[in-house]
């Protein structure tokens, strides 16, 4: 039962407000509509990781689905919905697929989510071998206002990183020049990452979220070739010597 708000309904007492938000959802890339096949595969998955299928919201992606030969008659999204619910998944909608498929889904009460270009649809799972680290080499100075991100690898800059510039990497950061801007290594949480630079004049250095700003740097280290890493969760800044 709804609670009744007191009588002084002012501007700030609206019963709700709508706001956009982003969620991480599991996407189920559906390749065929064979109910039995889906059920069998699903049962296997649930057996492997039962805790994963605990009311897990899931989006059904129809991009890889081969069109059913006998038209839309055999398409039963209601059945699919029940099947998924029964295995601990909570379908929140579909995406992609032909307009006809989307129409059927809509009639089954499944919202059609706007298409977003997901990186690489998992159509060929056999090719999902571990990708090698993707290092990024920048052979020009990084100027004020520029932001460079090396995802899943190291960032190597052959030049200066200016004040007001930002270099970011999931891995290590190597700067063969002065670091005057911000450098953030291990931004996905890798505490084993390092930052190296030829002249430390940084605005901010950070490894796996532990950071130090310019003010907190030892003036004696300023302008020197330095290396930065984490020891026991603390940033340690050493001279770049061997």
């Amino acid at each position, binding site marked *: 039962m709804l609670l009744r708000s007191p009588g002084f309904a002012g501007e700030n007492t609206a019963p709700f407000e709508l706001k956009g938000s982003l969620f991480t959802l599991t996407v189920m890339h559906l390749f065929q509509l064979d109910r039995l096949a889906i059920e069998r595969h699903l049962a296997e998955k649930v057996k492997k990781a039962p805790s994963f299928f605990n009311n897990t919201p899931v989006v059904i992606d129809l991009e890889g689905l081969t069109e059913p030969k006998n038209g839309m008659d055999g398409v039963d999204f209601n059945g699919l919905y029940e099947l998924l619910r029964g295995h601990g998944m909570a379908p929140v909608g579909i995406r992609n697929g032909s307009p006809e498929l989307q129409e059927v889904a809509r009639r089954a009460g499944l919202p059609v989510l706007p298409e977003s270009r997901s990186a690489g649809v998992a159509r060929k799972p056999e090719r999902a071998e571990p990708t090698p680290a993707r290092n990024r080499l920048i052979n*020009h100075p990084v100027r*004020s206002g*520029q932001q460079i991100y090396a995802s899943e690898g190291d960032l190597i800059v052959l030049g200066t990183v200016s004040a007001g510039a930002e270099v970011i990497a999931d891995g290590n950061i190597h700067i063969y020049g002065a670091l005057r801007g911000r450098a953030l290594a291990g931004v996905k949480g890798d505490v084993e990452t390092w930052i190296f630079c030829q002249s430390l004049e940084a605005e901010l250095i950070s490894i796996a979220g532990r950071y130090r700003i310019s003010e907190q740097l030892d003036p004696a280290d300023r302008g020197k070739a330095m290396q930065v890493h984490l020891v026991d969760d603390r940033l340690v800044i050493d001279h770049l010597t061997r």
Partner: protein
Amino acid sequence: MATVIVVTSGKGGVGKTTTSASFATGLAQRGYRTVVIDFDVGLRNLDLIMGCERRVVYDFVNIINGEANLNQALIRDKRVENLHILPASQTRDKEALTKEGVERVLNDLRQSFEYIVCDSPAGIERGALMALYFADEALVVTNPEVSSVRDSDRILGILASRSRRAEQGDPPVKEHLVLARYAPERADRGDMLSVEDVLEILGIPLLGVIPESQTVLQSSNSGVPVILEDGSDAGVAYGDLVDRFLGKNLPHRFITPQKKGFLKRLFGGG
């Protein structure tokens, strides 16, 4: 093949238009067919500095919109042969500068000019982006002062990433540093950044150092590009700058404090 040169800085008031006017005038004096375009739509200034404000009929935006042809809008300089000015519109805003329109006008100008100098507005918005987009070379004007240098650094980043050359993967825009309003005595005292400081931060070749000078203000107000003021330090410095741009190897002047003679020191002249 015409060369498009943008005169840019990021920050306002550092001497872009003064540099555009003198640079274009210097190129024309040396015999090159040169046009200088005011990209500061809505804040038209170049015509004042060039002393042709009373002869503006049509402008850059008129041509972009097809309301006039180039010959109607180009103003021929009365003092220097080979020099033309394309004024900005004072009544429009920067949104009137479309990429297609600017490209069309530049392509037309390429037919009849060897150097096309684009005087950029301050900032990093549309006007500035359009002024630099088609550039082959860039004069980055900066003052020996930290905020000006940082803004120039920003513009250099934009030149390297958002110019047509960058977008099409062509050889990058050739960058030249113009250090304007430089006072060697004050740099020596540490009041302002030195030439070395600025070069260390920006890391691009130095094309010229323009000394701080009263003449610049006077010549701006009288509508004469300072390069035409015989005997002024700033004018001489712009002359050197143009020669260096054209490939001459000249030492930099006006970068060390002038030794004052005994009498001058005694009476505080300067």
